[in-house]
């Protein structure tokens, strides 16, 4: 019983990480039709921003309030990079989908190389508060606190994004834009402002994932974003493009499947099961759990 609870909670921790990355991807894709390969870069910037702030910024540190400050700095850095990327690189290529994908591909290659050039290719130990290294006993299972932190953060982010989408004017514009962008434009609303906003939200969530993922794994390395990104893509497709709630469901399914199959089957089998799940979803329900059918 303890094992099952432990696996469930660590699986949910993994799911939380996927959700933080996938929610932004899904919104960006749903609204702006941009498949954002640079999302892994935002994650890397968040992780390295937090790592740098904890070591160098006055007032920030690996513990207590200093750690919150460091994470906030990392998230701010990730958000800033995301906004800059949208304004400088994506916006001039508005409605040219393939070119946008190409630019984000180039950005992911160059950005990761830049991180690697600045801080080296090797994984660095991540500063984390002592309590995240410990475990909490829940129903007889010893659950690492880092995972619990991720779950709490993901639930908070999910709640915040949903509240933002439901009860604010910009949320309304984004929801309407995902449904029918031309109509929103025809009503005289500048959808491109919403694009920037969505990039900022996605960048912030990804940067948070980077910072908390650093806490969870204990290290930070330039390539970390890339491997997470592929599973985030899978989550986005299974959940349905443009649906935050769909991403949440899909990330829970993917995280749990991966964790359970990797434990009870061979290591690595869970990852393959996830791709199998993707193929099944695409064949039976191409629009995902809740979302629009992806077209070019």
């Amino acid at each position: 019983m303890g094992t099952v609870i432990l696996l469930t909670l660590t699986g949910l921790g993994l799911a939380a990480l996927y959700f933080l990355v996938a929610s932004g991807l899904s919104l960006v894709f749903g609204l702006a039709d941009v498949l954002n390969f640079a999302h892994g870069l935002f994650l890397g910037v968040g992780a390295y921003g937090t790592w740098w702030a904890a070591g160098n910024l006055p007032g920030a540190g690996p513990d207590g309030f200093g750690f919150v400050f460091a994470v906030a700095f990392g998230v701010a850095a990730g958000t800033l990079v995301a906004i800059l990327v949208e304004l400088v690189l994506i916006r001039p290529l508005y409605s040219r989908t393939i070119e946008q994908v190409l630019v984000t591909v180039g950005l992911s290659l160059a950005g990761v190389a830049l991180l690697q050039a600045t801080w080296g290719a090797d994984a660095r130990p991540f500063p984390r508060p002592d309590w995240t290294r410990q475990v909490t006993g829940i129903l007889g299972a010893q659950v690492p606190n880092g995972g619990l932190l991720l779950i709490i953060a993901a639930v908070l982010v999910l709640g915040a994004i949903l509240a933002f989408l439901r009860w604010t004017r910009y949320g309304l514009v984004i929801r309407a834009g995902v449904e029918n962008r031309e109509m929103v434009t025809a009503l005289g609303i500048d959808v491109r402002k919403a694009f920037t906003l969505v990039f900022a939200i996605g960048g912030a969530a990804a940067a948070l994932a980077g910072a908390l993922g650093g806490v969870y794994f204990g290290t930070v390395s330039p390539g970390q974003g890339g491997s997470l990104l592929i599973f985030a893509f899978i989550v986005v497709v299974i959940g349905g493009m443009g649906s935050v709630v769909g991403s949440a469901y899909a990330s829970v399914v993917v995280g749990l499947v991966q964790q359970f199959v990797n434990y009870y089957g061979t290591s690595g089998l869970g990852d393959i099961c996830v791709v199998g799940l993707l193929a099944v979803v695409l064949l039976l329900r191409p629009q995902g759990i809740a979302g629009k059918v992806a077209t070019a």
Partner: protein
Amino acid sequence: MTVIDAPRAQVPDELSPQRGRWHRVRPFLPLVALVVLAILPYSTISLPGIFEGPVNSPGTLQLLAICLIFGGLAAGYDLLFGRTGMLSFGHALYFAAGVYGTDILVTRAGLPLWQAALLTITGGTILAALLGAVALRTVGIAFAMVTLAFAQVGAILVARDFGGLTGGEEGLPLDVSGLPAGLVGVTNTVNLYWLALAYLTLVVFVVHRVSGSPTGRVLAGLRDDERRIGVLGLDPYRYKLVAFTLAGGLASAGGVVYVLIVGGASPHITSSELTLSLLVMVVLGGPGTRWGPVLGGVLYMYLDHRLTAFGTSDAVDNLPAVLSRPLSQPLFVLGTVFILAVYFFPGGITSLAPRLSHLTRSLRPRSPR
């Protein structure tokens, strides 16, 4: 009934393409290039700064051979991306299938090379057909993601080393004892170079023939307007599957040659980064053109290898750290060039020549009338 010839439309001089001095020679240029490349190993010229050591030294020949392989791979990938408009992010899988298939069949199963190569290419083609049949049920960006996910399975299978076949993270060195003597050893690098050249020629020939055939015109139609092809009564799915399978087969053939040149398989060739770099090669060279992807592939691999040396050279080391560190990362330089290329010369290298000629023509003083 009398037929009246319509008067020929007047085409302004500046719109009709100019016949260059070389227009008679142009059709033979590829042949000339092939001959030059074929006899290149006989020359002992050394080009300092471009290659280390003379042209026919084994190191240079190996680098050239890898460049040629990737030229061929990029040309095969262009069949998908540039000519059919399919954005696949999983092309590395079929290349890796070629590399690991040959390596495993030769090293672990002890098959002779020709059997291993034949089995691998057949297997790679069938794999492409099967996975393509599933992936092509989606279009556009979803297709890109599905191919990416399939390629990721390949990467996981290789990295986790199921059944102890692939050697996991350390890769699998090729067992050379069963190979033909002419393909083994440093002194025989030249044979591998010719093999790579033959592969490139084969791919260029196949892609050229396919794109010139009626099928190729349907593929171009799919790229431009898929719905219209459907309205004409042709099944887009079948044509795309043909292109996908053919490109997959060509890629696995490239893998067979690559494993001989490098002498083993390493897991990084299964990564999605390889597919991304194929995409970079095609876009840099010029998608949908005959020579663009080949040029892009050759140039990319050359720069990828040489920029590492360039990054550690004195000229770069003496720069301030802010500049020298990023410049020592080949991927940073290539990624930046790629982004600039998407913005400023979208047609790739091959589009530069006509653009430059426009520029020189407009800069030239006009002759008085």
